[in-house]
């Protein structure tokens, strides 16, 4: 960094701050169940954006938006179920209070490694996330620890950082009060009141690919994505994006 001007140096500090703030906003947008706004607010306007979950890629703007729309639609369906299951309690709430009432999904971000490209046009970052969420199931409301990774490529658009690629990988997922090391976890009993409850099911990725496997006893040792290293300019082959596209 010896060759950078003072303005460039402080710009790089601001970039780090802005990228951390961006991922904090992603976390709070999930918490506030505003996934319908996710793509427009935080993702690049490019058509080739890409989101990865453990079982594959959502390639392209429509697919990424489709993923988040499915999350948002699930919250709406969840709300309708709760209104039918608990009509008296839900009737006391405003429509805004009803939306997702009783559910929570939070993905705090920590352990960040961030590298701004030498040319300042892109950045790469990785975060660890000790998340927790709950959902309704035929076994009633269940809460989970959901621990994993957010690994992102960012691009600067009109002076603002936007997400170009994101790998959101789940490393550990376990119901609260249980161990992820149980080889034969006892199933939860079904609860009649929740017989029609449907937990969230993600739409199928348009490029299915086993990218990561959540922990199970006997899982072969699995490395997390590598943290980024300093780089000069964006190279898709060294990115967190899909390969061979």
């Amino acid at each position, binding site marked *: *960094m*010896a060759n950078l001007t*003072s303005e460039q*140096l*402080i710009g*790089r*500090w601001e970039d*780090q701050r802005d990228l951390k703030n961006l991922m904090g906003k992603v976390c709070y947008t999930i918490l506030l169940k505003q996934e319908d706004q996710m793509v427009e607010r935080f993702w690049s306007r490019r058509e080739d954006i890409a989101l990865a979950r453990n079982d594959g890629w959502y390639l392209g703007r429509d697919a990424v938006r489709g993923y988040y729309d499915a999350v948002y639609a699930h919250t709406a369906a969840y709300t309708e179920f709760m209104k039918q299951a608990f009509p008296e309690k839900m009737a006391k709430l405003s429509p805004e209070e009803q939306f997702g009432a009783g559910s929570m999904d939070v993905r705090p971000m*920590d*352990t*960040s*490694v*961030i*590298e701004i490209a030498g040319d300042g046009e892109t950045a790469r970052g*990785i975060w*660890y996330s*000790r998340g927790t969420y709950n959902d309704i199931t035929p076994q009633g409301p269940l809460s989970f620890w959901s*621990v994993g990774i957010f690994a992102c490529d960012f691009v600067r658009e009109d002076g603002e950082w936007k997400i170009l690629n994101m790998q959101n990988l789940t*490393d*550990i997922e*376990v119901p609260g*009060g*249980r*161990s*992820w*090391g*149980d*080889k034969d976890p006892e199933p939860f009993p079904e609860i009649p009141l929740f017989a029609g409850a449907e937990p969230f099911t993600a739409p199928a990725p348009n490029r299915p690919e086993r990218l990561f496997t959540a*922990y199970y*006893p*006997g*899982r*072969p*040792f*699995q*490395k*997390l994505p*590598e*943290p980024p290293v300093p780089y000069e300019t964006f190279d898709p082959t060294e990115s967190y994006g899909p390969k061979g596209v």
Partner: protein
Amino acid sequence: MNYYETRQYTDEELLVRILDKEEIKNLMARRAFYRANGQRQRELDELWVATEEYRKSASYGRNWGYYVGLDSIRNYYVTEFERKQTAALQAIADAGADVAVTPENLGWGCSSFHETTTPMLYIAGDGKTARGLWYVPGQETIMQPDGSAKCYWTMDNMSADFVKENGAWKIWHLVVCSDFFVEAGTDFQEGTLDPLTGPDPFREEFGTPDIPMVVHNPRYNLGDNYPAMPLPYETYTVQGSLSPEGHPRPAEGYYKYMKEGLKK
């Protein structure tokens, strides 16, 4: 009045100090990923001090003592660890699991991550060293021969001295101490795990430290206050550092005191 209230820096110096903090936070987060990915040797090669002067005085403190010098740290952190990993994998294979005992299968059924949060970080007034403290929630997953895994939620603190070597920040003295750990799915009020007296699966993994002593006693409301919150400082001195010599209680005396205290 402290130096930082009176010392005058140029704008350039202030910017470097601000970016130094970001570099050190990146460094310690990078360490977390290398460790989780089984890249312990890479961590020592890339992230720790490299010049002879600092290699000899590098140290790694755990609740039960200090490993001193990079050779000793490597023996504790890499060699012994891999030897125990191999033995654990052999026991799993002997119990009937369909896994070959090969270097690429080390860590089969295991997982860990120790997050870096809550950084408190000071660059020395002279800009040559730095000192930081993080809180470190995490998880350790240890495969068992019976086909299950022992899974722990862990709560550690992590403190370090850093030195700028050839323009890059490096780990010099590292202290990683457990406050508590508990098996997943159990109530930590009822836990019997203890980093001082055992059973402690992490303590048992490694050999005797070069300086065996109670580095951190997590009992009694963490009353030993070690590692303490860092304070602003002008230049590195042993006193107040994260080296074994910088520990506020003399090693031998404190060790004896704690041994006697623990027997009561």
